[in-house]
């Protein structure tokens, strides 16, 4: 008797510790694995170039394999037939016209014009006199040369020289600058980033004509060596922040970076959270505005979505257009967005709590209608709401992924399923449909952050179904505690509200006219907080009165 009791007691304590242990093991399973990754090393035959051209070309051939687009063209420099040269390039990444006109042609025809001796030619001389394309360097390191070649540089090798020249003659097909797909504005610039890093940088540069705009390039990804560029303005951004971002970027050890989302997940502060702590945009005006506030942008080659960090939670409710239209309407729109955020996350949960726990809070005439609609439906209110929410999410996801032509069919089916048939088939009551409609429409007000809303919505529906209003309050308190604990690169996520920063409130939910906001957002741009001269409110000239 005694023994069994003791066993139960012990196991309950042990059980708790094992529960924690299981969790720990789960986390370890998620985080750590055995480091088996094999480097995609090319066969390192030699570290540096030799003096023999043919030997060097053989080495290149061995490193790069026999891919059809790798071109190695040998030619004779000048007409002496004494010195041989070669260009090595990847055909699909380079501009053939430029190679022919500006590299090969001058080397063959123009060498004699310069009083060069073809038998004792040197790289410096070629760089200074012959090649008119821009040159990114001269080196004898194989690693560097191969990398340059893979980014679209043309390598020029000369027989007898132990160095090679990297000539920038990139050229490839890319799409032009188009309108943004996700962030649509009525008033404001219509250009969006593209997939090409340099094009994106040029879009940023064009808006900030300032020598202090700094770009730092990182090459991340063992296999892809993707170019990732941090952009900031020296003198505004906090230098500690630059160091922090650089060190986090350097810490990334992965095989590939295919989108900025990869970077985001590696460097964000809180990964296990539905809330993003790094914002992203495909509009250059937004990114430039964030850079000017003292943030750092991260442009990743191959994606039109540029990251900006650190991020505040208020930014969820802000759009670029808020700053282009007049402040009253902008403030109104931000309040609408906050309302939509809460409506969209909470309204199904509120419906569940009201209709199953606190019926006395519903006005009598409404509850009569609601009770009438509920009569004859088979499931409890939580299940009703869950069915409809999940159905809606399925329809929405189908609509997003489908080709345009089929998309219309989805909307017709969706309208029928959700709007009409679910009610007339007696599956759910009409009020549920209205609640879901409000929820769905509200969630489209903040399209960029729709993922937070959907996750929270399911949490709140479950809590409301289990505990009613108590559960919803529990969830809200939990959410606020979680938000207050979040940091984005050391900066409180809920600023300027918590901690309270009165100057920051001027551009939070409320937006004052520009002459009223003369400081940068809190915690950003610490070394240079003031962004405008104060007292710029337009008013009649005092002296002329």
């Amino acid at each position, binding site marked *: 008797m005694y023994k069994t009791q003791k*066993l*139960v007691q012990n*196991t*309950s304590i*042990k*059980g*708790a510790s*094992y*529960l924690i242990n299981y969790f720990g093991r789960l986390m370890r399973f998620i985080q750590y694995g055995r480091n088996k990754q094999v480097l995609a090393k090319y066969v390192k035959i030699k570290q540096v170039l030799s003096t023999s051209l043919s030997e060097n070309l053989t080495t290149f051939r061995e490193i790069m394999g026999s891919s059809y687009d790798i071109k190695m063209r040998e030619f004779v420099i000048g007409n002496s037939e004494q010195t041989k040269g070669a260009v090595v390039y990847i055909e699909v990444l380079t501009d053939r016209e430029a190679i022919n006109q500006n590299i090969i042609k001058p080397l063959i025809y123009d060498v004699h014009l310069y009083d060069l001796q073809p038998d004792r030619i040197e790289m410096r001389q070629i760089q200074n006199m012959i090649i008119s394309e821009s040159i990114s360097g001269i080196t004898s390191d194989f690693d560097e040369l191969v990398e340059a070649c893979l980014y679209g540089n043309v390598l020029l090798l000369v027989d007898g020289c132990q160095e090679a020249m990297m000539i920038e003659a990139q050229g490839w097909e890319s799409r032009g600058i188009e309108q943004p797909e996700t962030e649509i504005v009525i008033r404001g610039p219509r250009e969006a980033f593209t997939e090409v890093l340099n094009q994106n940088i040029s879009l940023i540069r064009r808006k900030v004509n300032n020598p202090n705009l700094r770009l730092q390039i990182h090459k991340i990804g063992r296999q892809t060596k993707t170019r990732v560029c941090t952009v900031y303005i020296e003198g505004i951004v906090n230098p500690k922040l630059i160091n922090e971002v650089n060190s986090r970027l350097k810490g990334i050890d992965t095989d590939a970076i295919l989108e900025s989302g990869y970077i985001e997940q590696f460097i964000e502060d809180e990964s296990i959270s539905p809330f993003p702590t790094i914002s992203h945009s495909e509009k250059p005006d937004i990114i430039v505005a964030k850079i000017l506030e003292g943030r750092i942008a991260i442009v990743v080659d191959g994606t039109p979505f540029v990251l900006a960090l650190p991020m505040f939670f208020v930014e969820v409710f802000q759009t670029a257009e808020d700053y282009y239209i007049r402040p009253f309407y902008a403030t109104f729109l931000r309040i609408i967005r906050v309302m939509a955020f809460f409506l969209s996350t909470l309204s199904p949960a509120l419906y569940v709590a009201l*209709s*199953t*726990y606190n*019926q*006395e809070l519903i006005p*009598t*005439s409404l*509850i*009569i*209608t*609601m*009770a*009438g*609609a*509920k*009569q*004859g*439906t088979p499931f*409890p*209110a939580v299940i009703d709401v869950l069915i409809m929410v999940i159905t809606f999410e399925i329809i929405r996801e189908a609509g997003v992924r489908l080709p345009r032509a089929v998309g219309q069919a989805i909307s017709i089916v969706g309208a029928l399923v959700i709007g009409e048939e679910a009610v007339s088939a007696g599956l759910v009551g009409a009020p549920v449909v209205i609640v879901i409609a409000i929820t769905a429409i509200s969630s489209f007000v903040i399209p960029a952050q729709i993922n937070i809303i959907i996750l929270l919505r399911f949490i709140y529906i479950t809590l409301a*179904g*289990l*505990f*009613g209003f108590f*559960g919803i309050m529990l969830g809200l308190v939990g959410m606020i505690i979680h938000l207050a604990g979040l940091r984005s690169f050391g900066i409180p996520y809920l600023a300027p509200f918590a901690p309270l920063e009165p100057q920051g409130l001027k551009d939070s939910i409320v937006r004052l006219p520009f002459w009223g906001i003369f400081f940068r957002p809190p915690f950003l741009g610490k070394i240079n907080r003031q962004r405008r001269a104060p007292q710029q409110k337009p008013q009649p000239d005092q002296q002329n009165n």
Partner: protein
Amino acid sequence: MVILVVRFYQLLFILLLLCTICLNGCWNSKELSDIALVTGMGFDKEKVDSQEVIMTSQVIIPKEHPSMAGAAESTSEENKPYTNLTQKGVSIFDAVRKTNAFYSNKQFWGHLKTVIIGKNAAKAGINSYMDFLIRDHELRRQAYILISEKKPETILGLMADMELIPSITMQGLVESARFSGFASSVNLQNFLSRLMSESTAPIAALVKTKKHEANALPHVYGTAIFSKGKQARLIGKLNEHETRGFLFVIGQVKSGIVSFKYPPTEEIVSIELLSNKVAIKPLFKKKGPVFQVTLKIIGALGEQLYLGDLTSFQAKAKLNRLFAQEVRREVMKSMAKAKKLKADIYGFGEIIYQKNPHYWQKIKKNWPEIFAKSEFDLKIKTRIKYSGLIIKSPISN
């Protein structure tokens, strides 16, 4: 083997933990389709001294409500949007639960609008039956209390035209009584606070049936006065004008029409009441307390059947005098009735307690007698503020 047992207990422990999360919340949840909305209740006794209480609860049938699509356009006896469940029991709760034998849904009291108490129950004393209305957690104290000569189930079956559910009709009638001042509107909260007070007598509105064409319609009027003491018993009534006199003193006349004869031609003039302010000051004399009641009443000339000019200075003064006289008559009538019943419906005892608690301790034992003998010094200040869109009757010469 031992390890297996330990593992089993661990698993059990984790499962139990999960159960605490999943199982505890739903205990209080009620689906809308499983509850019966009670909007009105009534209770009475067969005779004044009978033990059992006859309990009627009015339950809404949402499907038949015209706000639902598919409900019948016109409501007849067959498809009424409500049903009255009547059952005898030794207590109210007992009777309520007995109805579940023939009505499956559990009654939900959160939307109770009216409580109708029959004459017999009111005469027998209603303190004991109030217990259920206070104790039950679903009930809210906004329900109006009405005393009925007829059986409560009769009143709860009267169909008025605008609203199809009688108990909600009754709620509207009590609320609209404030436009005439002819009925006191007392909800459960007011009733309970009077019931719990040391001196103030509980009151409630009265309801009766009135023939209108072929139908009988509910008619809310006057005030029912209950005795103080262990059981609050119905001891008397105030008619419409006495009720308004009473409401003037407690400052609750929000609106109403005061009509009186204008002397030279004895034609009627009606004044619309706009505001009513009261100041009550008790004076503690040797022979007993004297109450200085000062009424400040503002009215507007609403209608005159008299064809002369009433806006001249002299006419206005006369009009004010007559207006004050009419108000005084109503107030004095109500006071005479209250004194006769020895029921302090005005809350004068509370005022004494607040002003002079020591004095109250001395007199509280025989307060009803003292109240019946105490003097009232009534001052009425009237003012007629507007005369509408015209100054004098356009057809007058």
